[in-house]
């Protein structure tokens, strides 16, 4: 029989070993904890049913929830497509070997987070399946870059198509314009026409010429998309440019009840910039404003212009009293091919091109909008 002393010694030895294990356990736990707290990746653990047991700090960032808010709920419900996620987890559990796949999750505020997901089995000491650990890397910015590249590619394609179409249209346009010019001088030369007839014919021919000029302006604008030329700076009278833009868009305004307000300083403001590029920005913005007030079910449409000189820049504000931009559309309006206009009318090119041009001019474009009140677009043009 062992003496008490021996027993005491054994107990001492055991407790020593135990404390050693405790330290090891503590260290391992700390190691794990620091990974869970510091990794940017979303790391989660679930039981066999897919109920969330723990969520790392990175996971809180990816999904937008605090861990304690959502532990106990099913992990699949945070995927954009829960059924698909469940299928992938089940497949993984059946096969047993680690898997990797790409899966979009839904952030608390609604935006999509694209993740590269790895799943690992969680087993107990008996090798029994206890659940799943997932490590998810946020790939959203990478995905956005990819999408951006695709968009740039599509824009280049549109540019090529536009250039081709414009060339084909320009030729007959030139012919029409020449014939009109010839007709005009023929009318001038004609001896037996009455004064009234001459006047009427001359006006008609002038109208044809005016319309071909309008077409030409459009084709030139279209070509702005495909051309990547550097800005040519000249002295631009902004007051005059804005009035010209309205004149140019007069046909769009003709049948609408629209009030145009110019809030200009008494002396016109000049800025050194590329007139053609700026004109394109204005035409696009005013066209949008016209569309906005056309959708207005009640009352009179109003488009207001304001020019302000700031520190190192000139600001042009174009305001409409249209319906405003819906909240869910706001972050998308500068996206290529995004449009709220009916197909055939909106191309989704206008605003991205404005943004592109303003970047080229060294300026910027911003907007403020309120549903039911209207929208203001501001362009800042650097003034040296």
């Amino acid at each position, binding site marked *: 029989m062992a003496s008490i002393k021996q027993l005491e010694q054994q107990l001492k030895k055991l407790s020593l070993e135990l404390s050693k294990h405790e330290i090891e356990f503590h260290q391992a736990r700390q190691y794990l904890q620091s990974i869970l707290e510091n990794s940017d990746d979303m790391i989660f653990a679930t039981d066999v049913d897919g109920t969330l047991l723990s969520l790392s700090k990175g996971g809180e960032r990816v999904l937008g929830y605090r861990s304690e808010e959502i532990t106990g709920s099913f992990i699949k419900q945070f995927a954009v497509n829960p059924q698909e996620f469940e299928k992938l987890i089940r497949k993984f559990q059946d096969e047993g070997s680690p898997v990797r796949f790409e899966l979009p999750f839904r952030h608390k505020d609604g935006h999509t987070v694209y993740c590269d997901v790895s799943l690992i089995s969680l087993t107990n000491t008996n090798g029994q399946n206890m659940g799943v650990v997932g490590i998810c890397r946020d790939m959203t910015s990478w995905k956005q870059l990819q999408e951006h590249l695709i968009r740039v590619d599509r824009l280049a394609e549109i540019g090529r198509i536009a*250039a081709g179409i*414009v*060339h084909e249209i*320009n*030729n007959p*346009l*030139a*012919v029409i*314009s*020449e*014939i009109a*010019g*010839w007709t005009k*001088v023929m009318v001038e*030369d004609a001896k037996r026409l009455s004064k009234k007839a001459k006047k009427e014919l001359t006006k008609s021919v002038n109208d044809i010429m005016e319309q*071909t000029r309008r077409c*030409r302006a459009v*084709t*030139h604008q279209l*070509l702005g998309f*495909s*051309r990547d030329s550097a800005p040519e700076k000249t002295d631009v009278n902004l007051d005059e440019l804005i009035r010209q833009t309205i004149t140019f868009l007069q046909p769009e305004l003709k049948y609408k009840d629209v009030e145009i307000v110019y809030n200009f300083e008494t002396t016109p403001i000049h800025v050194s910039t590329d007139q053609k590029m700026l004109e394109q920005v204005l035409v696009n913005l005013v066209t949008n404003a016209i569309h906005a007030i056309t959708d207005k079910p009640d009352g009179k449409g109003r488009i207001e212009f304001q020019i302000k000189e700031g520190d190192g820049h000139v600001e042009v504000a174009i305001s409409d009293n249209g319906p405003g931009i819906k909240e869910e559309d706001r972050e998308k309006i500068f996206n290529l091919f995004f449009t709220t206009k009916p197909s055939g009318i909106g191309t989704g090119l206008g605003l991205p091109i404005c943004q592109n041009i303003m970047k080229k001019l060294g300026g910027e474009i911003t907007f403020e909008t309120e549903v039911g009140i209207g929208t203001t677009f501001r362009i800042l043009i650097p003034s040296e």
Partner: protein
Amino acid sequence: MSDKPDIRVLLIDDEQTLLEYLSKRLLREGFTVKATFSGEEAIEAASNDNYDVAVVDLKMPGIDGVETQKRLKKIQPFLQCIVLTGHGSIESALKSGQQDAFKYLLKPIDYEDLVEAIKEAYKKKVEFVNQKFKEQVEEIYRSGLGAKGIKKAIRELRKLYGID
């Protein structure tokens, strides 16, 4: 149109209807106009008659505007060329720049701009010809030819310069 010099214009464009009306208008203003619808046709015309200004479309089937301009210059070194270009052909426009185009006009052209360009081109041609002619005549005199030789040389020179 006595206030205007008789400017001989060679038009080259495969767009026949355009040239038809353009020619009519230019003729009415007192220009002498020859309309040709291809580079080949223009080169043939330039081998037969003298012109002051050529208006060349850049994009044509057969030999294109750049090549046409090059060959025209070989036949008539003083001919001034106005090049008509569509957008998107800036590269070829620059290439034709190496062939000393007097001016580029963007299609569709504005008639008034074209008339203005033709007059300017003519002015440049006249200056250029006068200067060269003077230089060469002086050279002939310096060469020590006899009276008969000088007369013959000048006659040839006049022919070369298209001075009738």
